[in-house]
């Protein structure tokens, strides 16, 4: 039997061929693939990244919906206090008697929220800023980058400490601090990509057609920098989780009555020898979140650029 040839184009002559005789001409059926599908496919192939995505989604679901279903309230003390993990309290209880699973879930919710907002903030400010700076070049570029340098010089701790005094260590403050001090990194990354892109023909073509800088940035440059932006955003999420934990460990992050994973660890510092689960368990959750996000970022990096070009800062 012969295989019918199925292609999207009709054969020359306009007559669709019905049969062939003789040797089989094997042409593979190739559907045109859009770029997104290619990217998603490559992501699929990165097994660690896929596994991480699943784990992370599970964690998010558990943190938000699981917390609703769990019967203990994180702020109501129970009669059992300072107990290690048991059937009744899977993660034990703290020194006032709060069920620790409930507290960790609540803390995870808040930490995830902080991390997502920080990454969003950094990307949405940093990417356009870096693209515009890279495109315009010259003196304006220099000034814009020096402003970034100034923000990068500011120590995170000082800003966090000063603002936590006036606002009392709320989640909003921590989000603002981490986001506002983090966007220069995104800007630099995007700018490097743009510096490479702007010598390319399509940008020259756009300019020749009369496109203004804003249009070039948003229509041509940023879409081509998507890979960098997305990867940097995932790094920002991981960085925000760890950054918030570090701030809270030093007492400068989220304060009661708000809670977060870093805050839980910070409160548990003195209990390391006596109630180790209070200290190590939230840390494990942080590690899981940061780990999965980093793998996802790695997968995305591979997916967006299969040649694995060096990523410039």
């Amino acid at each position, binding site marked *: 039997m012969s295989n019918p040839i199925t292609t999207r184009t009709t054969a020359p002559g306009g007559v669709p061929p019905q049969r062939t005789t003789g040797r089989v001409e094997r042409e593979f059926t190739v559907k045109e693939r859009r770029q997104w599908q290619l990217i998603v496919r490559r992501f699929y192939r990165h097994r660690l990244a896929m596994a991480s995505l699943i784990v992370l989604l599970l964690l998010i679901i558990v943190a938000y919906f699981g917390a609703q279903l769990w019967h203990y309230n994180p702020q109501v003390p129970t009669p059992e206090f*300072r107990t*290690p993990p048991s059937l009744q309290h899977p993660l034990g209880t703290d*020194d*006032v008697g709060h069920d620790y699973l409930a507290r960790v879930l609540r803390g995870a919710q808040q930490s995830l929220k902080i991390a997502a907002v920080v990454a969003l903030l950094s990307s949405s400010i940093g990417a356009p800023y870096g693209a515009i700076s890279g495109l315009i070049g010259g003196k304006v570029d220099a000034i814009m980058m020096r402003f970034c340098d100034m923000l990068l010089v500011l120590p995170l701790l000082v800003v966090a400490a000063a603002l*936590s*005094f006036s606002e*009392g*260590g709320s989640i909003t403050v921590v989000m603002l601090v981490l986001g506002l001090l983090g966007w220069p990194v995104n800007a630099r990354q995007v700018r490097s990509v743009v510096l490479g892109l702007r010598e390319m023909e399509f940008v020259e073509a756009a300019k020749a057609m009369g496109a203004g800088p804003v249009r070039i940035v948003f229509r041509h440059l940023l879409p081509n920098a998507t890979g960098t932006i997305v990867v940097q955003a995932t790094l920002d999420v991981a960085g925000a989780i760890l950054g918030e934990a570090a701030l809270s460990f030093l*007492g400068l992050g989220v*304060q*009661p*009555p708000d809670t977060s994973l870093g805050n839980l660890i910070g*409160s548990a*510092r*003195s*209990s*390391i*020898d*006596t*109630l*180790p689960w209070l200290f*190590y368990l939230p840390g494990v959750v942080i590690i899981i979140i940061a780990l999965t996000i980093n793998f996802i970022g790695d997968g995305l990096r591979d997916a967006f650029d299969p040649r694995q070009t060096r990523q410039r800062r």
Partner: protein
Amino acid sequence: MRSGTKRLTGLIAISAAALMVASACSTKSGGGPGQSSFSWKDCIAHPNDCNSGPTKQGGTMLVTDEKKITSWFVADAASNTYDQAQIMSGLIPSPFIVRPDSSVVLNTDLMESATLVSANPQKVEYKIKQNAVWNDGTPITADDFTFAWKFQNGKDCNATDCPVAGTTGYDTISGITSADNGKTVDVTWSDVYPDWRALFSLWPSKVATQYAGGDLYAPGGLAKAYKGFLNEQMPAWSGAAYIMQDYQKDVSTTLVPNPKWYGATKPSLDKIIYKIILDSTQEVDALKNGEINVTTAQPDADMVSAVAALPNTSYNLSAGPTWEHIDLNLKNKWLADKALRQAIFTAIDRKDIIAKTVLPFFPTAAPLNNHNYMPGMSGYTDNITPTGQGAGDIAKAKQILEAAGYKNDASGQKLTDPSGAVVGDLRFSYTQTNKLRETSAELVQAQLQQLGITVKLTPLPDLSVLGSGDFDMIIFAWVGTPFLSGNKDLWSTNGGGNYGHYSNPTVDQDLAKAATDTDATQQATDFNAADQLMAQDAYVLPLYQKPVFIAVSNQFVNIRNNPTSAGPAYNMQEWGTRASAQ
């Protein structure tokens, strides 16, 4: 090569995991918290001589120091911290010593006697021991007394040149005379100062004169002397049992015995090294690891259980002079009403607060019932229980409110005052890093909820709101002292420590009298009279005395808990290595 790496990686992973699991799971057993261990069981009955015994020569003791040293001149306000004062006790002689049971006794190494010759005008005669000398051989004389007086009286040297931590007691001295080659010192005060025994920690006037460039009391002389002491990297002088051998900034201080020490007991230790550890959570590991032998960190349930589980370490918790209390700001329009205040204090259950905060690791914790005296001091009387406050009696609190015209609003949830206005939210402020205070705040919030009063938890980074008055209810601690005349400032109208703006003229009168009573019994009567009135006015509710903690490796003896501000260093020359095998 490849399979080797694989195996190696696997091996490392497994052993790392095993180690981590092992360390995380090694839960401790051992003595329960709150008990003294080893030879310290008798500390409750005999606080002044528990853990005593014969010493043998030699040994190095490693002690924690929880703050960085800014300067050795502990008379300066910025340098007047507990840790620095402890170290300097080894160098600075004082006429009186405060013992662990709060008794004040004569320092018989330094003084022959110190007697109140006349009460009014107040005159004290000090007789210094003939053999008391500084380590350069200069005898300790009236010159040293005069120097201490002049630079701390706030007049001979102003606050810009000499920003001292305290002038009280020195500022009312009218004159000092001496006899017998300076070994007899007569001090006269223009106003009665009952706490004269706290005065005259001595600094070497000869060194001061050198710093001043010759004439100590010429214009600017005291300022130069002050600066000289302030800038000392490492004092080379000493009038007590030890001298400073080494100081590495921000790292450690080393004391060795003073060869010219004139006292009865010569130090047996070779060295005492104070190590600076800023983060108290690291101290337990250091104790475990043998990197320190003694710590006096703030106790909490975790620290105490961790130390209790350590082998070869004893510890003691004693009720200290620092006491937690809840204050009301009388400038708040609701809290200005006495009935509301009384009801609030009656509803607060102190036993419950204690049970959830200090009781787990300090089994003898009990509510404190006096604003000036601690149990064990001879002036102590229970002034709080008769008022019914602090007992958690919700029914009685409601009665007080009803009698004053308060009712619940329509929903039954909120309290309204006699005019019908809903009583506003009251902020309950506390330092945010203190978990015990946070717990206390939550408990008070729940207790007052039952009266229809809404309490808002307000964590603060520090206590500066005391000065600004921006608080409604606040929990913090005062450091008590056996020298009570200063307490007048805490409770009298416009007093320096009266942060809640309490004012009662009868109380003021009693306090003014108490501040100048030289007779301890009379002083107690006056203070307690004021205290009873103040308790009824419901301004400050004492909660409990904070425990003071000390942990010591078992090889050391004669070092014990001294919860007063004198600290364990009060008998530094007696510390030593245990003579008998442990």
